[in-house]
């Protein structure tokens, strides 16, 4: 079975927010909410500073606490590549999944259900890349099967130094950042 994931090259990301706009347009994300966003992370001691700009979203964790804590089964892992999704008319809006996510990637849609990145599953089913990946002007985002050693994402991870977000939380995130 495929295991979909994303690889983001932080050396190329300029934080232009095209991915954010593409997501909002493609998925009709309600006003004032975001399924993906840009983070600017500056660390070090002046003048020896290091800045990482990256695009973030739901990490579609392999060990997803949002799926385990859901009392109705609304949060689930899709058969297609382990994408984590929410069935809207099963969700009661208890917000346990929001509390369980170390990335705070979820929000409550104004219609009452938990909402988040779907990896644009409707596009992936047609063999297309997620909207954010397809519009990136610097081509810093890659989407593919992490279980396939010949996929571009696997090759990038094998050849470049990378990190995931908050790996110590133990959720096995499926988005990796090249550094």
């Amino acid at each position, binding site marked *: 079975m495929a295991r979909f994931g994303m690889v983001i090259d932080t050396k190329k990301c300029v934080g232009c*927010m095209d991915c*954010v706009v593409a997501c909002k347009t493609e998925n009709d994300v309600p006003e*004032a*909410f*975001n399924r993906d*966003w*840009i*983070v*600017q*992370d*500056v*660390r*070090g*001691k*002046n003048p020896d*500073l290091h800045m*990482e700009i990256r695009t*973030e979203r739901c990490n579609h964790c392999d060990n997803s*606490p949002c799926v*385990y*804590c*859901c*009392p*109705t*089964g*609304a949060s689930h892992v899709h058969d297609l590549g382990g994408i984590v999704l929410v069935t809207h*008319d*099963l*969700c*009661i*809006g*208890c*917000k*346990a999944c*929001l*509390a*369980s*996510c*170390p990335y*705070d990637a*979820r*929000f*409550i849609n104004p*219609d*009452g*259900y938990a909402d988040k990145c779907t990896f644009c599953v409707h596009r992936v089913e047609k063999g297309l890349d997620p909207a954010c990946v397809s519009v990136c002007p610097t081509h810093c985002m890659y989407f593919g099967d992490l279980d396939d050693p010949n996929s571009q994402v696997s090759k990038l991870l094998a050849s470049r130094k990378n*990190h*995931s*977000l*908050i*790996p*110590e*939380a*133990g959720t096995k995130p499926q988005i990796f*950042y090249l*550094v």
Partner: protein
Amino acid sequence: MNEYTTTRHNELVDPSLHIWGWEIPVYLFIGGLVAGMMIVTGYFIFKGKYKDKACVCRVLPLLGMIILSAGMFALFLDLEHKLYTWRLYLTFKVASPMSWGAWILIVVYPAMIASFLVNVPEYFSNKFPWMDKISEKLQQHKYAVKNIGVVNMLLGGLLGIYTGVLLSALGARPLWNSPMLWLLFLVSGLSAASAFVHMVAKRVDERELLAKADNGFLILELFVIALFFIGMVTSTKVHIDSALVLLSGIYAPAFWVFVLALGIVIPLIIQLLAVDHKIKHTPVAPIMVIVGGLVLRFVIVYAGQYTRWVDAAF
């Protein structure tokens, strides 16, 4: 330095999580209180005290059902997709404490109704004689009555434990991620229930017994709180920072003053003097214990949402 800037500003999530308002702490407190009331009722029924017309165990089940229903209504108010609430009862998710809770809430009602029917209060037996007949029949079966007591104690324990597990299972909030939380909420629930029963009991010996029990629970609660913090401050950096939110951070005044001083230590001193017959029993200490228990849930729920993992990977 570590400067983190994000373009995300999702409602209820940023700048720090604030998904749960007053409804959840109130519900968790009520869950603990009613759990304690079920355990006290179960104990009195098991011990055969129900035969006494003045026994507090005759009124506790009804009060418990009314209070728990109010708590469930608060829980319902918190749901964002209210029309779909029934979806909870179409499935059972073994890994979800909330699913366990939804079913536990359904199971405790028949247990409380059974304990209510063991010896129906006069007001009801006069109005509905058939209830009295059920009581008479039940009381002929001594072991059935004892079992009702045991079931109430077990389900009460389960209800009290689940209110803590609900939060501690959410590993993304370091302050909640403690194996002591279920014990803290269970003991706090027992303490609040003892204080409540102390106020409503008619018999002096029951009031004395519950005051003594409450003192024991309050002392135990102090130990559990100490263990909760020892576990936190000997854990990872995020857990240490979370503990400091309560110990010296923005929730410290509420924690030290309302939970520890006014909610546990001072009522404990008052009640120790009262059971020693140095001062009279008054509702002051029980009210302080109950309010302290409520504030504890508020502080834990609010401070827990304030705590989070921070990315230390890159």
